[in-house]
C-alpha cells in the first residue's frame, strides 16, 4: 500500500506511521479471518466482490491462502462479476455477493428477502462475523484507493490474515 503518502523508512504501508493502532487493526482483522466461524471461501468471495465494486487495485489482486486451499480457485473468482446470479457459483457464495452489494449500498434499505435468505443460511454469530468482515473490507479498500495503488499488479497469493500478522 504505497503511493501518495509515503510509509516510514523500511515499512510497507503509511499505516506504519501509527504502529500501535495499526497493530491493533491487524489483531482485529486477523482474528476476524482466522478465528471466525464462517468458512474462508465465503468471506473471500465477499471480499473480492467488494474489491471489484470499489475498484481497489490491490485488494482485487490479492488471494488469501486459506480460501484458495479450501476450494476458491481462479475459475470461481472469475465468476464474481456481472452475471454471477446465473453462474455456476454455489448458492451460498451468490448470497455473499448479494449481501456485499447491499452493504455497499447502505444506508439504502436492505431487501427483506435478502435479509431472510441470509438468516436462513447463517446463524446470528455467523451473520455478524460475515457482515463485519465485509464492512471492514469495504472501508479499508478505500485506504488503498486513497493512498494510491500501482497501475498494474499481478494476482498474488498471501497468507490469510492472522492475529499476529499483518495485512499484505
Amino acid at each position, binding site marked *: 500500500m504505497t503511493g501518495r503518502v509515503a510509509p516510514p523508512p523500511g515499512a510497507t504501508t503509511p499505516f506504519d506511521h501509527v504502529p500501535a493502532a495499526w497493530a491493533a487493526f491487524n489483531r482485529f482483522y486477523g482474528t476476524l479471518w482466522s478465528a471466525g466461524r464462517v468458512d474462508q471461501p465465503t468471506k473471500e468471495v465477499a471480499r473480492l466482490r467488494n474489491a471489484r465494486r470499489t475498484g481497489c487495485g490491490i485488494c482485487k489482486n490479492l488471494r488469501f491462502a486459506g480460501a484458495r486451499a479450501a476450494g476458491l480457485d481462479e475459475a470461481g473468482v472469475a465468476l464474481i462479476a456481472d452475471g454471477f446470479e446465473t453462474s455456476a457459483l454455489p448458492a451460498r457464495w451468490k448470497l455473499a455477493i448479494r449481501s456485499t452489494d447491499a452493504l455497499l449500498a*447502505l444506508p439504502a434499505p436492505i431487501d427483506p428477502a435478502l435479509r431472510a435468505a441470509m438468516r436462513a443460511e447463517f446463524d446470528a454469530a455467523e451473520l455478524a462475523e460475515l457482515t463485519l468482515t465485509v464492512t471492514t473490507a469495504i472501508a479499508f479498500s478505500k485506504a488503498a484507493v486513497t493512498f494510491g495503488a500501482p497501475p498494474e499488479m499481478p494476482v498474488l497469493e498471501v497468507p490469510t490474515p492472522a492475529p499476529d500478522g499483518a495485512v499484505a
Partner: protein
Amino acid sequence: MLELLAGVGAPFADLHARLWETGAIPPRTLDLCRRRIATLLGRAVDGALPGPPPGVGATPGQIAALPAWPTAPAFSDDERAGLAFAEQYVLDPHGFSDADLAGMEARFGAPGVAALALAAAVFEATARFAAAEVA
C-alpha cells in the same frame, strides 16, 4: 454491537481505543469525523465502543453544528480539513487528487494522514455494520 461479535469483540474494541492514542491527529478532529461518518450512514455513534478521553472530544456546540460543518464557525480549519477528508473517503475515495493528499500531508504530516485514514476506515466499517442491523 460488541455482544454480536463473540471472539472478535475485544480486539475490535481495543482497535477503537487505540485510534485516540496515536498523538498524530487531535482526538477532537477524529471524534468529529466519527460522528459525521455515522451520520452519512444513517446512524449515531455506538456508545459501547471506546470514544475519546473525557474533555477532548467534540464539544456540544460542534455536535449541534456538524450538519453545517463547511461554513459553521464552530470548527477550526484543521477540523474542516479532517471532515472534508472523512466525507471524501467514505463517499468517493477515487475523487482524491494528488494535490488533495499533498495538502493533507502538509497540514497534518504523514502520520496524521495515516491516523486519519485508519480512523475513517474503522469508523466507516463500524457505522456500516451498525446500519446493516444484523441483530
